[in-house]
Every structure is written in C-alpha cells, then in structure tokens.
C-alpha cells in the first residue's frame, strides 16, 4: 500500500445527510470551506453494525472531552473505528449531540420543501435516521454522535457553552479508517450554535489511500490505551 492523492472528492451541501463505507487503509478529509461548519457524525463497523462508535468508551479511554489529532474514536468492542491523523482546527465536540425537529422549529421556525425547494430546514436527528435507514439501520442504532468543527466548553459547575469561531475557512480534519467503517454524516448546524439564522455550511470531503499505522504512529503512541486499542483492532483482521 502506498499513499495516493485523492481517489475521489465531493461537496456535501449545507444541511445535507451523507454516508459512505470508508475502507480500511483509506482516510477521509473533511474541509470547512467557509468557516463555522458543523459535521454530525456516527461510525459503525460496516461488517457488523451492532459494533458502533461509543462516546463514553472514546472519552474515558483517552481522558478527553474533545477530539483532535492523536486521538481515536473507539467502538463499543474495544476497537478503533477511525483515527484523527490531521487536524487544523484543534477541537471537535463529542458531547453535545445533535438537533431535532423541535429544536430547529423553535430556533428558526420552519421552511418546507414546497416553499424553498432543497433549502428546506433539516435537523440532525432526522438526517441521521434517514441516512441510517438506507443501510437497514434505525432508531435503535442511533447513538451519541461527534460534531466535527464545533467546540463546546464545560465550566467547573458543568455548564456547557458553544464557542463561536472555532473553525476558520479552510479548516480541516482527516480521519483514517482502521476498519471498514460505515460513516453517517450530516452538515446541520450544531444544536448549541447561537446563530439566530438557519445557516448550515458546506463541507468538502476527499478520500485517499494512506499507509497503515506505523509502530510510531502518533495516534498509536499518544497513550498506552491506544496502543492496546490498535492491537485489538489489528487482531480483528488476523
């Protein structure tokens, strides 16, 4: 295997849902073209989707409440679904979840397809459920998600606050697939985004082939837990 330039790329429109099976040995780069984007994401083992991204296991294995380069996203089976191998943003939110129809209507009112065609207002939960249903998955498979490009701070009393301006135009994050991973994404706004306007942003996605993680890979050596996580993931393919 060698590294390649992009195998293919695509623009994910604002407020859109999107899915793809990331093959082991490829990486997906998400780029925030305009700044202030948000990408809601959940990941599944494509071969056995009952194995899926697990927020608590990801946070407690690495003692983190944010995602950036060097961290990995764990499944509920002790394996690594994707690793964050590049990141110009520095903070991606794994805590705050996604929007639903009630939240979008409360914040932005509503705009239907009949009124505004494809600019109709979408929400994160319905976007996830529609995209999951295309793969035979449903509400029982909807679990805690990541919000790439968004940052939520937590104070000493536990209060959560959205940090505006976290992602600048051109900001990117790159995820290396350590398994064959079903990625379910949407580009709806973050649920705590204080922007009073319905204003989701487009995101560019590019897929390339990458080298297998080396013995000194930054995600593998970032902490002993991740070393064991890579061992368990590699054993799955032996």
């Amino acid at each position, binding site marked *: 295997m060698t590294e390649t330039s992009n195998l293919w790329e695509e623009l994910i429109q604002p407020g859109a849902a999107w899915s793809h099976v990331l093959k082991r040995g490829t990486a997906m780069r998400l780029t925030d073209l305009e700044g202030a984007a948000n990408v809601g994401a959940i990941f599944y083992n494509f071969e056995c989707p*009952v194995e899926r991204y*697990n*927020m*608590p*296991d990801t*946070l*407690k*294995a690495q*003692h*983190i*409440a*944010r995602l950036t380069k060097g961290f990995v996203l*764990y499944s*509920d*089976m*002790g*394996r690594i679904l994707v690793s964050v191998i590049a990141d110009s943003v520095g*903070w991606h939110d794994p*805590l*705050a*979840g*996604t929007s*639903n129809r*009630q939240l979008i209507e409360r914040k932005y009112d509503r705009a239907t397809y009949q009124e505004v065609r494809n600019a109709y207002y979408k929400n994160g*939960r319905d976007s996830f459920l529609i995209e999951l249903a295309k793969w035979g998955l*449903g*509400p*029982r*498979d*909807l*679990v*805690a*998600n990541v919000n790439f490009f968004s940052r939520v*701070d*937590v*104070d*000493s*009393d*536990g*209060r*959560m606050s959205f940090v505006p301006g976290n992602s600048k135009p051109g900001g990117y994050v790159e995820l290396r697939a350590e398994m064959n991973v079903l990625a379910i994404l949407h580009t709806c706004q973050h*649920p*705590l985004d204080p922007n009073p306007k319905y204003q989701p942003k487009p995101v560019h996605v590019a897929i390339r082939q990458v080298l297998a993680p080396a013995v000194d890979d930054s995600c593998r050596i970032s902490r002993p*837990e991740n070393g*064991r*996580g890579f*061992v*368990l993931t590699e054993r799955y393919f032996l």
Partner: protein
Amino acid sequence: MISSAPILAPTTAENANLKTIGNNLVQSELDAAQAIYRHVIPAGEPWIHEIAKGQFFRIVDLQGNQAVDTLFYNSHDYADRYSAQDTIQQQGNIYLTTGTKLISTAGTTLLTIVADTCGRHDTLGGACANESNMVRYAIEKRHMHACRSSFLKALIDWDHGMSKRDIPANINFFMNVPVTADGKLTFEDGISEPGKYVEMRADADVLCLISNCPQLNNPCNAYNPTPVEVIIWAAEP
C-alpha cells in the same frame, strides 16, 4: 411529598466537601415504610423493572461511592430510550442533579430528578465492558465481570427482543466525572457517602435497567463494589 427547600450549606467538617458542588441538594420526605417496592441489588448484579408514570423511584448508595449504571426506556417503545446527549444538551449542563429532566432520543421527558443528597451524577463515563477494560487496563482483564455483560444478561432474561443495540450511553449515579477547561475528562474521588440517594418521578411509563457496577480496576469506588437499594412509591393520588 418532595421538599423543595435545598439543604443549607453544610456546617460540619464531615460534609464540608459538599460546598463545592452547588445548591442542588434536596431531601425527599417520602418514607421507605410506605413504599410499594424495595430491593437491594448486590454488587455486580443487574436489575430490570418497570416504573409507571407518576411513581417515585429512589436509588440509595448504601455504603458510599458505588457506581449505579442506569438506563431507561419508554415502556411502550423500547427504541425510544434515555439519551445522554439530549439530556445534557437540553439543560446545558453535563451533570445530572435535582431538576434534571432525563430526555429520550425522541425528545420526551422520561423522568425528572426530584431529590438528590449527593449533588451530581455522571452521564459521560458510560458502562464498563470486557472490551473497554482491555483497552483501559490490560488485555488480560477481558474475563473480569463488567456492566455491559450485566446489561446484556438482564435484557436476555427480559425476553422482549432487546440486544446490544439497546445499550446506549448510560447514567452513572453517584459518580463524579468532571470535564476540565482544556477538554480533559477526569475521574475524581467520589462525592457520595453511605445513605446518599437520588430520587426521580417517572413522567412516562418506563423500563429501568441497572447494572450495579462490578469494576475492580478503578479507584472511584475504592476497588470495592457494594450493594445499593432501589425503592418505588406509588403515584400521588
């Protein structure tokens, strides 16, 4: 039935640590002698039970600093279940305490916490599993009893077709898992003590699934899992 007056700032040295966790401490006036159901869950055992709308449900940390891994489901649709992210997002705070509404994936309120003598409870740390123990501690720890196995055993025995798909991120009653300003998740010493409790009112008919945590690798419970009591009172007439 529920006292709305918060417990005043502690005055004795014994519970001075409560000052740091805010004014969420609320006692209940419900009398265990009047309860319709009482059960002690031994350390390492699961418990699954239906709680009807309007009933009051208390979990008592009998010996202190025990983690009570808990999930709730809408009794009429198990796919509609407790959502940690919707719960913390809606209240804008990562800790569960008095006043917290436990929100489902469909956005409905399953239960409301109406009394809490501990002060904060975690919903980010999840449940231990054989597999996560291998990652966190050592690969040879695979055999050790873990919450997710208790959850699965209880769901198999419940015999309603539920499976691992039905185990989302849970609540850890009595656990203290702060997030720092620089985005770290920390497991702090427990703030619970023998006899502390949390009490909820069911706002819907719910199914409750508990794993009384058997974790022996984490200092949060002083490496000593202990029993807890669950108590249910009838709905107010």
